[in-house]
C-alpha cells in the first residue's frame, strides 16, 4: 500500500515557533546586536566591533565570577546527586499512605518560589532572629553570612541543597520504581549483597533519569540568581557573586549594556556547550541500552 504524506502537520508547529521567536530568538538577536555596540540610551548606538568580547575575555572580574560559579556548581552537584540517590533508596517502595506522605514532604521545597526560598534562608541564618544563626552562635560557632565569606558560601550551598535535592530524589525514585521485582528476586537467589544490588541493578536502571537530573541541576545551578542574590546580594565583597549576579550588576546596576551583552553571549555558549555534551551522552546511552 502506498503511504501518503501529509505535510500539513507542520502548521501545528507554528504557534510554538512564534512563541520561541518572541521569547528567545528576538531577545537573542537583540543581545547579539548590543554586544557589538555601545549605547547611552535613547536607542542611540555606536559601533565598537568585537571590543566588548575582548574586554570580557580578559576581564579578571569575569574570570573570578566564572571560577566561583564552577566551584558552586561542582559542590552542589557533588552533594545533591549522591544525597538524592541515598534518600530515594530509603524511601518506601510499596504504594500507600506513608509513601504518598513521604513524596509530598520531599516535593515541598520544589513548590516554594525562589525569592521566598532566599528570604527564608536569609532570616533562618540571622544571628539575632534566625534559628540556624542563633543556634550556631549559641554553641560558639562564629557564623555571620553578611561578613564572613565562608559562612556566606555555607549558607547558599545548604540553601541550594535544601531546595533542589528533592528533584534528584523524585527522579531517582521514579527510576527505582520502574525496576521490575524479578531483578530483585534474581539478586536474592544469587545472594547478592546490598551494594551489588545497587551497583549492578539499581544504578544502571537509574542511569537515564540520573543523567536528566544531572543535566537539570547543572543548568539550574549554573544560571542561579535569585536565591543567593536575596541572601547575600553577592557579598560579602564579591565572595558569592556568581555569573548571573555579576551579569545583572553589569547590565542593570552599571547600565553597561554592550559588555553585559557580550558577557551573556559567552555565558550562553558555555551553558549550550555543556548541555549539548550532557544531552548527547544521554541520548547515546539510551541508544546503547535500547
Amino acid at each position, binding site marked *: 500500500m502506498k503511504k501518503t504524506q501529509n505535510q500539513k502537520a507542520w502548521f501545528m508547529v507554528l504557534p510554538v515557533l512564534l512563541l520561541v521567536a518572541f521569547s528567545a530568538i*528576538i531577545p537573542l*538577536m*537583540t543581545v*547579539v*546586536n*548590543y554586544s*557589538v*555596540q555601545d*549605547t547611552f540610551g535613547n*536607542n542611540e*548606538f555606536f*559601533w565598537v*566591533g*568585537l*571590543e566588548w*568580547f*575582548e574586554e570580557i*575575555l*580578559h576581564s579578571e572580574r569575569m574570570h573570578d565570577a566564572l571560577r566561583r560559579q564552577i566551584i558552586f556548581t561542582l559542590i552542589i552537584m557533588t552533594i545533591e546527586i549522591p544525597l538524592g540517590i541515598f534518600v530515594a533508596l530509603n524511601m518506601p517502595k510499596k504504594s500507600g499512605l506513608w509513601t504518598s506522605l513521604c513524596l509530598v514532604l520531599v516535593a515541598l521545597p520544589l513548590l516554594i518560589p525562589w525569592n521566598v526560598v532566599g528570604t527564608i534562608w536569609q532570616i533562618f541564618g540571622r544571628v539575632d532572629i534566625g534559628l540556624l544563626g542563633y543556634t550556631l552562635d549559641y554553641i560558639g560557632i562564629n557564623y555571620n553570612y553578611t561578613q564572613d565569606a565562608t559562612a556566606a558560601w555555607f549558607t547558599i550551598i545548604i540553601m541550594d541543597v535544601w531546595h533542589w535535592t528533592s528533584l534528584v530524589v523524585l527522579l531517582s525514585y521514579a527510576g527505582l520504581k520502574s525496576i521490575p521485582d524479578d531483578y530483585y528476586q534474581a539478586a536474592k537467589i544469587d545472594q547478592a549483597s546490598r551494594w551489588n544490588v545497587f551497583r549492578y541493578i539499581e544504578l544502571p536502571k537509574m542511569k537515564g533519569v540520573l543523567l536528566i537530573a544531572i543535566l537539570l541541576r547543572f543548568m539550574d545551578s549554573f544560571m542561579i540568581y535569585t536565591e543567593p542574590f536575596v541572601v547575600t546580594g553577592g557579598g560579602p565583597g564579591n565572595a558569592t557573586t556568581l555569573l548571573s549576579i555579576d551579569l545583572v550588576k553589569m547590565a542593570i546596576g552599571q547600565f553597561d549594556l554592550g559588555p553585559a551583552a557580550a558577557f551573556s553571549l*559567552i555565558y550562553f*555558549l558555555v551553558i*549550550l*556547550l555543556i548541555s*549539548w555534551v550532557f544531552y*548527547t551522552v544521554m541520548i*547515546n546511552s539510551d*541508544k546503547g541500552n535500547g
Partner: protein
Amino acid sequence: MDLSWMGWTTPTMIFFVSIAFMIVIMIIWSIKAPQAPRVGILRIETTPGDRLFISLLGSAFICLAWLAFFGAPVWGALAVCLGYAASVFKWV
C-alpha cells in the same frame, strides 16, 4: 513597527541571514537527498543538522579563543572555522 530598540547593524544582519541561509540550505538538502544518521570519529550518531550545530557551536568557541589570544580582527579565525566545519561534515 519601530525596531530601533533592537539596535540592528549591517554586520549582525549579515550574521543572522547567513545562519538562516545555512538552515534553509540544510532543509532543502535533506528533502532533495535524505541522509541516514551516521557514526563518525566522535562515536556518536549525527545527522547533517547535528553536524551543522557542532560546526556553529565549535566555530563560536574558535572565534572566542582567537579573540582571547590574538584579538580582533577575526578573519584568521573565520578561515579556521571553515576548515573546522569542513572536517566536521567529513568525519564527525
